[in-house]
């Protein structure tokens, strides 16, 4: 099991390419920097709040003292309206920092071993859209079989994800290959030339998400009615 996984790792690393890893490292570094900046901002806000807490209550406590005797007296409303006056200039020193939004966690590495017991697969590889055919080819050479192929609509990121699941008929190993394409024009090359079984899976994914598989021999409606012009699994689809 692990021998095959060890064989696959360098092959996938070579396929994904050092540029992708460098880009990922830069993204992670940026994410770490953002996280550090966020932590600093949070700390600063906390310190400012502390200062404000230390300074602001003073006028709140000190100033009303003059009117406290009257304010505490029920019935006299006019003096009670005056104390807020000195309290308002004290507000600016405590600028509500409104806790800056936490930056998103850094994306996972394009190639990582995963725990089968925890997620149900052993290797998770993210490749560029044109590389899915090469990824299928190298898994085919190692005797893998296509398990499933599907899409995920990440509407907030304006992206479509295409997920390729592979299993091995004799080894205890599962591989996931994913790629992301722009949501406006989702298109990936077909892998039907490598795995004939991808034909139906790609037709189904085309039906549900409107993802085009370039080079597919027969990309006509499959599970939906033949006149369907909608893609039901897109998140903005409303029946």
């Amino acid at each position, binding site marked *: 099991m692990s021998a095959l996984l060890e064989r696959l790792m360098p092959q996938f690393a070579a396929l994904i390419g050092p540029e992708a890893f460098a880009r990922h490292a830069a993204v992670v570094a940026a994410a770490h920097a953002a996280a550090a900046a966020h932590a600093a901002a949070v700390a600063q806000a906390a310190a400012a709040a502390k200062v404000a807490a230390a300074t602001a209550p003073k006028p709140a406590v000190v100033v009303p003292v003059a009117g406290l005797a009257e304010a505490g007296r029920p019935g006299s409303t006019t003096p009670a309206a005056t104390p807020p006056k000195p309290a308002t200039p004290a507000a600016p020193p405590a600028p509500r920092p409104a806790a800056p939004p936490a930056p998103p966690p850094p994306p996972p590495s394009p190639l990582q071993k995963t725990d089968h017991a925890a997620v149900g697969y052993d290797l998770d590889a993210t490749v560029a859209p044109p590389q899915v055919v090469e990824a299928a080819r190298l898994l085919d050479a190692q005797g893998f079989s*296509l398990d499933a192929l599907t899409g995920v609509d990440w509407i907030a990121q304006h992206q479509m994800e295409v997920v390729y699941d592979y299993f091995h008929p004799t080894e205890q190993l599962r591989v996931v290959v994913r790629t992301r394409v722009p949501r406006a024009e989702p298109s990936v090359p077909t892998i039907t030339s490598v795995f004939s079984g991808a034909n139906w899976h790609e037709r189904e994914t085309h039906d549900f998400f409107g993802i085009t598989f370039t080079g597919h021999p027969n990309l006509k409606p499959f599970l939906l009615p033949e006149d369907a012009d909608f893609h039901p*699994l897109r998140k903005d689809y409303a029946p």
Partner: protein
Amino acid sequence: MIAEKQPIEAAEVLTPHLEPSQAATPPTAAVSAAQGSPETFTLNLGPQHPAAHGVLRVLMTMDGEWIERAEPIIGYIHRMHEKMGENRTWAKFLPNTSRIDYLSAMHYTHAFVGAVERAMKIEVPPRAEYARVITSELNRISSHMVWWGALLLDLGGFTPILYAFDDREKILDLLEGLCGARLTYCYYRFGGLYNDVDDAFLQGTRAFVQHLRPRLQMYRDLVTDNVILRQRLTGIGEISAEMCRKYGATGPVIRGAGVAYDVRRTEPYSVYPKLDFKIPTYPEADSMARYLVRMDEMEQSLRIIEQALDQIQPGPFIAPKIPRVLKLPVGDTCYAVEAARGRFMVRIVSDGKEQPYRVKLRTPSFSNLSLYEEASQGMILPDALAMMGSLDLVIPDIDR
């Protein structure tokens, strides 16, 4: 053998002229050469055809009795379960999973609760796991009984289905006693079971195992060793291991091609690693091999049930403190089970909300049927229908 077809001149129209002795030989060369030949006709099998076992349509281009091309056209019972998964909570989607392959409902609910349990890191009590194995294997037997009866019905034998349904009825009664349903069971829950297995069920199951063993022997004597059945299935409808791999075909189809692929072994789940059972394989890769795999599997299921009945201990049947409305951690999780027709996998994607972000249902019949076009090329129609029967298709499982 037929000599290769000569290219047909535009002006001259040839009428097929076959000697009686030649007609019985599969014209493999002729089939590939006859693309677009004027002698072919279109045969529309289904979507309402008794041999299609549901609303499957196969558009066939026939060269006489020989199939030149058979393209399955699916989607007649498509219900968009995957979209339904996105607009309700995890628990509310659970009953949907038993309606995908209605003959194998236990396995399908098992995969879905398994995926959620894996994502939530829920520990399932051992008693629940054993009960799941017992009910799943009973379900496998009942599913194989339907396949067996229906296949023989296709082949012209009416009696076996009556025997098969007689025995299957006993399983349905047992499972009905547990969860109230006879077909679309929703017995498993996140973290365990809907209710505990009672003594009546355990004793009834033990009695059923004793009852079925001699019956399986009788099936063998009556049907499996029958020369008519053997001649209809042996050497016909070959689906090689390589074709299975290319199409992702699993279950008895790949095991009938000599590959010992079984999710219960390659991706062990539940308490299967604690149980001793064989994975029947036959290298012949023909319809008979797939037939024999399923017949052997029923015996193996009985073995599994017997061991699980011996090992099951009293204890809780569901994990404590499972929230009523689940919120799964962000990320994706897969869970696969060996259903009666092969590998069924659920891929769930959660964005941390109460409803799934995406539910992908990878069903075995979908992949198993996808190879039909390639495998049926050049076969005669009755053989292709026998091969279709040996694939054990459930159409709602393909369409989802």
